[in-house]
């Protein structure tokens, strides 16, 4: 597919990331140039925002949209359509075929409450009402063998009921079918005969994992979001190919890899993290320039902060996602999200304590200083009061920051009740925000068994570079790295993602007892499927990678550790790799413990040539500050006259000692007292920490 490295004349890749407030477009040219276009997101029609950004990019190059798309070798898209469809309750009407006795797994939700103290809040609405969760008799035993045959007449009756109720999509989840798909396949077959127009979502194909609740909710979620999402994706693809794009575009999935629009099939559930998961591609891109595979990114946008850890070049994967209270099993980037972004709201509780978040002001009205009617003080308002963000127009006038509104909101809602000045209150809000960021990173690293001191902290998102130096200092990180294009972090990462398909299969055996032939037989089945798919997507065998992994645990335990393994099965090597990770995660091992395999996994990659690092011109004359203005630096230094640089005036090799602010096209960078910032050869900022 993509042939960027060889293309002449000039060609490019385009990445489009649609966020709550802005739609970001990044164009990476075969000449090495990288361009960013930011346009406001069109909430009711996200594809319009994408097309606006494309038109803007074409205009700035002085070419037609047809030319721009015609020379695009790879168009990558991250979409929040699946997520928004779910959170706004706008999905399809779904019917569920389930096993007799188990129709309520979806509604019982295993009784999971994220915060038990918050027991007054109801669950999110159940996506399929009980009267559309229809049971069929039939039973597989705990080995997947049939005890009672599936009663197809009950499946037929269910279809009749679904018809009457206007059901658009059907999920099938039968008991123990992660062990054998026979009953589900038979049910699916009958539904296809009787109702070929209904979209089908079958649990053993979508989420072949043990656990009737997780399999049910995943197949239901898929049925719920797929019709709307696929229709969006297809119409955008038609618009793009109709305007000159030569090959179908690709979508970022929750696993951080991409999938071609044409091969996505009926599984839009894999797109629930499309967007933030592209952070992995960004980490892979920047690690080259940083020269380390130990990275922690904090990507801070308007509403939240996403934390991703890359350890020795690898980002861990998880299977279980929680999207606004809905659970979903789909291989995903291990990404930790907290409600801390530019729009996060500060308030004072009934006993005079400042609290920050997790509530946010959203894209609308957004921070008070945006002038869209918001009256609650936010992080962005505090940054404005503290002189770090300058009042006036941003993003080509798409928004205008009004300092008076920021001062008013903080004054009334925080400063006055606490008996502080507006500036003191704003400083407190920022301190509390940065404490939240610090705690989030500490939590992720503690839970994963990593010490942040070994890591480089990378700033992402429009708001990340304002906080990264301060948070990195508190974490004792080795250094902080701030990409010039932080504000388009995920769109950038999209251009550096491989095509990726994840496969898994439940399979039990003791590590010291299973045979290589047995494993090979099962891996071969998965590999055949993967190779067929990658071939269809245009990847020659030398442009693919097939990676195998086991889920392992000590006998008797109920939690697994995923260990990647080579093609040749060597139980001793596997044991050692397992013990190494187990020790890191749990602090001990069981020297005589029996190790059990619970799952095999295959990660199939279609390799896309890595995006070459940008090259910045070396500094000839060091860029001088464009201005100096009073800025609140930190608790110790207070207000100082701080030099403000224009990012475009800085060249590779230039050194700036903090405090300083750099205005960039997509973000604002802030470094503190004694921090030493160097512009690296790719034009990004490497910061070593002062005290």
């Amino acid at each position: 597919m993509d042939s960027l490295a060889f293309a002449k004349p000039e060609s490019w890749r385009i990445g489009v990331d649609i966020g709550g407030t802005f739609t970001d477009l990044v164009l990476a040219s075969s000449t090495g140039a990288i361009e960013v276009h930011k346009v406001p997101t069109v909430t009711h029609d996200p594809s319009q925002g994408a097309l606006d950004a494309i038109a803007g990019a074409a205009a700035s190059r002085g070419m037609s949209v047809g030319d721009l798309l015609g020379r695009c070798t790879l168009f990558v898209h991250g979409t929040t359509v699946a997520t928004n469809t779910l959170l706004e309750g706008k999905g399809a009407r779904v019917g569920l075929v389930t096993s007799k006795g188990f129709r309520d797994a979806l509604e019982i939700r295993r009784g999971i409450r994220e915060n038990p103290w918050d027991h007054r809040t109801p669950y999110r609405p159940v996506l399929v009402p009980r009267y559309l969760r229809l049971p069929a008799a039939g039973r597989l035993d705990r080995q997947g063998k049939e005890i009672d045959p599936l009663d197809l007449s009950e499946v037929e009756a269910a279809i009749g009921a679904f018809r009457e109720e206007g059901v658009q999509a059907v999920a099938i989840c039968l008991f123990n079918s992660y062990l054998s798909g026979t009953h589900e396949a038979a049910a699916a077959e009958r539904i296809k005969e009787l109702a070929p127009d209904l979209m089908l979502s079958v649990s053993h194909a979508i989420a072949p994992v043990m656990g009737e609740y997780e399999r049910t909710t995943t197949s239901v979620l898929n049925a719920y979001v797929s019709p709307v999402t696929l229709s969006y994706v297809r119409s955008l693809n038609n618009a793009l190919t109709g305007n000159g794009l030569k090959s179908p575009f690709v979508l970022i999935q929750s696993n951080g890899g991409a999938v071609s629009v044409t091969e996505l099939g009926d599984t839009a559930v894999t797109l629930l993290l499309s967007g933030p998961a592209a952070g992995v591609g960004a980490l892979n891109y920047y690690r080259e320039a940083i020269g380390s595979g130990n990275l922690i990114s904090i990507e801070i946008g308007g509403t939240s902060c996403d934390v991703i850890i890359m350890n020795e070049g690898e980002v861990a994967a998880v299977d279980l996602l929680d999207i606004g209270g809905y659970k979903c099993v789909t291989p995903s980037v291990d990404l930790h999200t907290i409600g801390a972004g530019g729009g996060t709201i500060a308030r004072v509780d009934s006993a005079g304590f400042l609290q920050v978040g997790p509530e946010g002001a959203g894209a609308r009205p957004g921070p008070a200083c945006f002038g869209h009617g918001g009256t609650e003080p936010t992080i962005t308002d505090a940054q404005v009061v503290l002189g770090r963000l300058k009042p006036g127009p941003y993003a080509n006038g798409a928004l205008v920051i009004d300092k008076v509104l920021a001062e008013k909101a903080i004054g009334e809602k925080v400063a006055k009740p606490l008996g502080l000045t507006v500036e003191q209150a704003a400083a407190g809000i920022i301190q509390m925000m940065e404490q939240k960021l610090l705690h989030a990173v500490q939590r992720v690293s503690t839970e994963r068994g990593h010490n942040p001191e070994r890591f480089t902290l990378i700033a992402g998102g429009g708001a990340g570079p304002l906080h990264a130096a301060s948070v990195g200092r508190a974490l004792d990180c080795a250094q902080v790295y701030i990409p010039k294009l932080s504000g388009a972090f995920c769109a950038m990462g999209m251009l550096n993602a491989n095509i990726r398909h994840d496969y898994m299969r439940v399979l039990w055996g003791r590590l010291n007892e299973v045979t290589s032939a047995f494993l090979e037989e099962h891996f071969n089945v998965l590999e055949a499927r993967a190779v067929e798919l990658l071939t269809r997507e245009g990847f020659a065998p030398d442009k693919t990678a097939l990676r195998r992994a086991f889920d392992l645990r000590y006998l008797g335990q109920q939690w697994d550790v995923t260990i990647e393994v080579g093609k040749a099965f060597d139980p001793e090597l596997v044991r050692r790799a397992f013990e190494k990770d187990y020790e890191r995660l749990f602090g001990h091992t069981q020297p005589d413990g029996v190790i059990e395999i619970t799952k095999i996994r295959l990660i199939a990659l279609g390799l896309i040539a890595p995006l070459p690092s940008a090259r910045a011109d070396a500094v000839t004359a060091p860029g001088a500050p464009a201005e100096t203005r009073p800025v609140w630096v930190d608790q110790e230094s207070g207000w100082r006259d701080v030099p403000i640089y224009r990012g475009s005036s800085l060249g590779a090799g230039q050194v700036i000692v903090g405090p300083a602010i750099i205005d960039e096209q997509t973000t604002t960078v802030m470094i503190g007292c004694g921090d030493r910032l160097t512009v690296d050869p790719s034009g990004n900022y490497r910061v070593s920490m002062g005290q």
Partner: protein
Amino acid sequence: MMSSCDPITVALVQNRLDHIAQHMGWVMTRTSRSPIFNQSHDFSCYLTNGEGLLISQADGIPIHTGGGGFAVRALLDAFFGRIAPDDVFLLNDPYVAGGNHLPDWVIARPVFAADRLVAFACNRAHQSDIGGGAAGTYNAKATEIFHEGIRLPPLRLIERGILREDLWQLLMINTRCPDLLDGDLRAMLGATQVGASELMKLVDEFGVEETRELFNQILDHGDRRMRAALGVLPDGTYVAEERYHTDCFEEVEIRFKVTLTKSGTDLHVDFTGTDPQIRGFKNSSLANTYSAVYAAVASFFDADMPRNEGTFRCLSINAPKGTVVNARSPAPVTMCTVFPAHEIMHMVWWALGQAMPDRALAGWGKNAFPVTAGTDARGSTWVMYNWGGASGAGATADRDGFNQIGPMVTLGGLSIPNAETYEQLYPIRVLRHELRVDGGGAGERRGGTGVLFDVEIETEAEYSFRGEGIGQPSGLGVRGGREGGAGFLSLTAADGSVYEPFPYGVERLGARRLSIQAPGGGGYGDPLKRDPAAVLRDVRDGLVSPEAARSEYGIALANDSASVDVAATEALRRASEPERRIVSAA
């Protein structure tokens, strides 16, 4: 520069203490051996100041709320003036050591700065086995605490950095699972070590005096928050009662009574009128009774209410000695963190609900299911909690009850396992795990339905029954809401014979089909006020029968239960109202 006790700094330090307590919890989850900890999170990490007042318990389960201070104050009493840096303490006893019940062991690690004791980092955790009359810490036959496991007064487990090996061996020979206990105690020590060193950093930053003042301010903030919440309640006296129907051995009614007196911003909680302690292990220790009251009061108000000892400064509690809420030694108490914690929380909720009806909370169904244990082909023991038979929760003004949820004392913090997973772990086949019809208490908001849970247990097994929710409704309604359905349990043998055991006891039986009707939760508000659309949905969903829709909710259905007959419903509801008034007047 602001002083370090400005409101921003105090808030930052409180967040930091909460983060330290959570950090200890993550370490414990990550490094402990037993699934009780890394799967079920049956532990709590907490911090106290130098006087043993709880300053943060951001990690942990609701029924541990606030009880941790008792343990630290007990060890301070025992070792006062003889506590040295690098000492670590261990205790569990509810009678002499501020414990709640014997399985919960507390590790407490003092934090010193400049020879001043400034804080403790502690971990209270439910051990897998501590000896006693039954494997797994719950001995339903116990009549004395001596039958429940090893008793530990405040002990110095580590003396100036040196682990007392002889004491460690004593602990290890008093458990059926020494490997688990060894690993878990080390995890507890590790977690408190992390907490103590993080506290040391804090003290280094602020200095001893400043730190103590910050702790005081944090306690004062908790105090102000709770008083602000209490302040809006009308002054007055509010009474609520609860009941046991057995003493674990025979049917006998045991009465609980609480009288709440709210005056200004103070709340007095008086258990006078509660029956004397009983023979079985459903007596409460004082620390557990306090914890249950704290958990109930905190959960009645906002979810983000701080839960430190300052928060509860406005409470005074009288639990008469020798009653079932403050038993005298040597009464057995192991069940107390569930029963009577559930009863105590109910009573406090209901009494507060009278003062603040909009926030009233209907009762949660008491659990009815047993624990089943057996031996597998390899000779190892398996122990299965039949969580699939857990109960439904009560309704609130804003939501129907959760149809099935973990125990009330965890406020749903324990999740229900998948039947598919259980079939892999145990010799069982789950036949049914479905919501009940008419199990939820009727109300403007309906109670949780409870479930029908049927499971074939394929081999001989030992059943430890603790069916508090069996036989009588336990999820009572509030503000005109009705009670949820009672629990029921039966065992069916291969020949079809059916056996209904006494709610408490231990019995060994051959292969059986265990059937549980889990109790439903109570309803909130008058069922006649329930939105007809919600009743229709319940009927269509099969959760409310058409008969109950008519008799309980005054809803007439048309078109084969597919729609509401509006005119007939209005007539029905009008006709029911005077009748209701008579009932409520009586």
